[in-house]
C-alpha cells in the first residue's frame, strides 16, 4: 500500500508533440492517499485509461514523475510496481483453470502454496466462483470471466494499488450492483488503495470517497461527491454530475451586475470574470431553480413526471432551463416566472468558476 503522487505528468502518443492538443494528458498533478477509494470519472477519450496505464507503468509519461510513497517509480517496469489492474474487458488465461488463474499472481511472487489455497478460496467465495474453480476458464461466460479478472486483481494483499478500468461494463445490471457493493466492502475490510475508472456517475459516486473528474486531458476537479455536486469548479463537472445536469446559461457582466437575457441575476460569486474572458456563463442546478412571481418570464416546453418530482423544461429567448419541481408544488399555467437560488448560482468564465 502506498501513497501515489503524480507530478506534472504529461503524455502524448505522438513522437514529437508540439501543440497542447497533441497531448492526451495535458498536465496532471494528483495525489492519491494510502487506503483511499477513488473514482476517476470522465467521458470516453478524456485520458482516464492513459492515466491508469501511467500509474501501472504500462506507459511511460512523456514528461513528469510518478511517485509511490515519495519514491520515483517513473522508470520502473510494471512487474516491479506491485500493482493490480482490472481491464474493461475480461482478460483470462484461457489455457488455465479458474483456480490457476486466480492463483497466478500469487504463485508468480513465490507465495507458499498453503497461503495461495487460502487466498484463492477466500476470493472465490466472495465472487461466488467456488463451484467453477476446477473448470477451464475458456468455457465461462463473459461475466464469469470478468469475475476472474476482478478476483485476480483482488487476490494479492500486498499491492500498492488496485486499479479498475471500467470493470463492470460487460456485467449485467443486477450483478453489477452486487459486485460494486462487494468491492466497496472489500475496500473497507482490506484498506487497499483503489482507483476506479468509470464514465458512469452513479458508479463513481457510490463507490468512491473522492471523485476525480477528468475532461479533455486535465483534472477539472477532485473532491467528495457532495463537493462536486454543490460546488462544481467547471461547467463540465456541473453538467456531467447530477441528473439532469447543471443549467449553463450565457450571461453578460457589466459594472458588476450579471444579466441573463436582460434580467439581473444574483449569484454567489463575489468576484467578477477577467475582462479578457471569451465566454461568461452562469451555472445553476435544476434543484435550485424555482417558480417565482418576481422572477423573469419563461415559457414551459415540457414536463416529465418522475413520481416524487417533476422535471420541467422551460424556455426564455433561445435558452432552455431544466428545473426540478416537487410533486406537491403546482406548476403555474399562465405567465410562469422563474428565479435562481442566489446561493447556488455561480459565474463561470471560459468554463471555470469565478468565486
Amino acid at each position, binding site marked *: 500500500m502506498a501513497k501515489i503522487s503524480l507530478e506534472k505528468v504529461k503524455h502524448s502518443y505522438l513522437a514529437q508533440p508540439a501543440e497542447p492538443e497533441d497531448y492526451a494528458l495535458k498536465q496532471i498533478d494528483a495525489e492519491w492517499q494510502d487506503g483511499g477509494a477513488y473514482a476517476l470519472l470522465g467521458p470516453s477519450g478524456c485520458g482516464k485509461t492513459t492515466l491508469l*496505464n501511467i500509474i501501472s507503468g504500462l506507459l511511460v509519461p512523456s514528461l513528469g514523475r510518478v511517485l509511490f510513497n515519495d519514491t520515483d517509480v517513473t522508470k520502473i*517496469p510494471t*512487474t516491479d510496481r506491485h*500493482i493490480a489492474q482490472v481491464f474493461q474487458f475480461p*482478460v483470462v488465461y484461457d*489455457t488455465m483453470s479458474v483456480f490457476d488463474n486466480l492463483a497466478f*499472481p500469487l504463485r*508468480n511472487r513465490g507465495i507458499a502454496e498453503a497461503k495461495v489455497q487460502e487466498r484463492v478460496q477466500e476470493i472465490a467465495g466472495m465472487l461466488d466462483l467456488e463451484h467453477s474453480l476446477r473448470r477451464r476458464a475458456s468455457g465461462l461466460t463473459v461475466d464469469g470471466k470478468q469475475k476472474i*479478472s476482478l478476483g*485476480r486483481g483482488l487476490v494479492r494483499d500486498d499491492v500498492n494499488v488496485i486499479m479498475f478500468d471500467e470493470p463492470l461494463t460487460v456485467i449485467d445490471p443486477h450483478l453489477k450492483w452486487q459486485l460494486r457493493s462487494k468491492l466497496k466492502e472489500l475496500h473497507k475490510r482490506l484498506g487497499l488503495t483503489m482507483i476506479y475508472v468509470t464514465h458512469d456517475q452513479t458508479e463513481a459516486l457510490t463507490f468512491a470517497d473522492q471523485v476525480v473528474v477528468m475532461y479533455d486531458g486535465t483534472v477539472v476537479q477532485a473532491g467528495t461527491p457532495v463537493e462536486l455536486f454543490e460546488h462544481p469548479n467547471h461547467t463540465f463537472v456541473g453538467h456531467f454530475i447530477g441528473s439532469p445536469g447543471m443549467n449553463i446559461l450565457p450571461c453578460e457582466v457589466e459594472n458588476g451586475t450579471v444579466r441573463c437575457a436582460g434580467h439581473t441575476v444574483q449569484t454567489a460569486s463575489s468576484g467578477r470574470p477577467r475582462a479578457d474572458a471569451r465566454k461568461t456563463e452562469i451555472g445553476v442546478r435544476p434543484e435550485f431553480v424555482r417558480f417565482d412571481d418576481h422572477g423573469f418570464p419563461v415559457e414551459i416546453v415540457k414536463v416529465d413526471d418522475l413520481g416524487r418530482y417533476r422535471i420541467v423544461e422551460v424556455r426564455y429567448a433561445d435558452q432552455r432551463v431544466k428545473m426540478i419541481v416537487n410533486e406537491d408544488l403546482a406548476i403555474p399555467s399562465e405567465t410562469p416566472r422563474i428565479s435562481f437560488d442566489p446561493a447556488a448560482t455561480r459565474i463561470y468564465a471560459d468554463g471555470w468558476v469565478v468565486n
Partner: protein
Amino acid sequence: MRIHKWLVPTLYIVFLMLPIYWLLNMSFKNTNEILGTFSLWPLDFTLANYRKIFTDPTWYNGYLNSITYVVMNTVISVSVALPAAYAFSRYRFLGDKHLFFWLLTNRMAPPAVFALPFFQLYSAIGLFDTHVAVALAHCLFNIPLAVWILEGFMSGVPKELDETAYLDGYSFWRFFVKIFIPTIAAGIGVAAFFCFMYSWVELLLAKTLTSVAAKPIAATMTRTASTAGYELGLLAAAGTLTIVPGAFVIYFVRNYIAKGFALGRV
C-alpha cells in the same frame, strides 16, 4: 424432393472422389491389367506395388527426404514468423503497414522465377542437394504466409492479456512462451499446416535444388518408365502414399482449421 436434396452433394463428392478412387484402384493392380483391361476394381488384387516402395531405397528415401525438408521448413517458418507477427500485431513502427503488405507480395511471383537464383546461389555455397536448401527456399513463400496467419490470430488476443501478465509478475519472454503461445496454439496449428502443405506439394524448387541425396518423392514419381518398362501400378501406389501425410496432418489440425479460418485470416 428428399432425393433432390442429396443429389447435388452426392454428385459433387463422387466427382471429387473419383480420381482418388481410381488412383487407389490402380495401385492394387499390376501394370498389365491397367493397360490391358478396363475394370472398376482390381481383378487381380496385388500388394506388390506397395511392397516395392517400402523395400526399395530409391522409393522410400523420396518420402524420407520430403518429410525431412518439409518438417525443417515448417519449424523454421513458424519460429521465425512468431516474433515477426507479434511485432506487427502489437507495435506501430515506421512503415509497418507497407512492410506487412510487402511480405505478401513475395508470394505473388511464381516459384519458377526463383529457381535459377536459388540454384546458382546454393551451388555456389555448397548447399545444393541438401534438405536445408529446399527448406530454406520454401521459407521464402511460407514465412510471409505464416506471419499473415499468426498476425490475424494475435490481433484477436487483446493487448490487455500482455499487460495483465506483466502486472501479475511475468517478464516478456515468460509471458510469450508460457501464456501467449498456448493462447494462440490454434493459430500456430493453422500456420504450421499451411507451411506443411505448401512445402509438401511444391515440386519445382524441390526438384531443381536436389539431385540424389535429397530428392523428393514428387520428383521420384515423375519418372514414368524405368528399365522394366511402364510401372503404372507402382506410380499409383506412390501417389496414394503421397496423399497420406496431408490427410494425416489435416486430421490433427481439423478443429483448429475451422477455428482458424474464423479467427485468423488466410
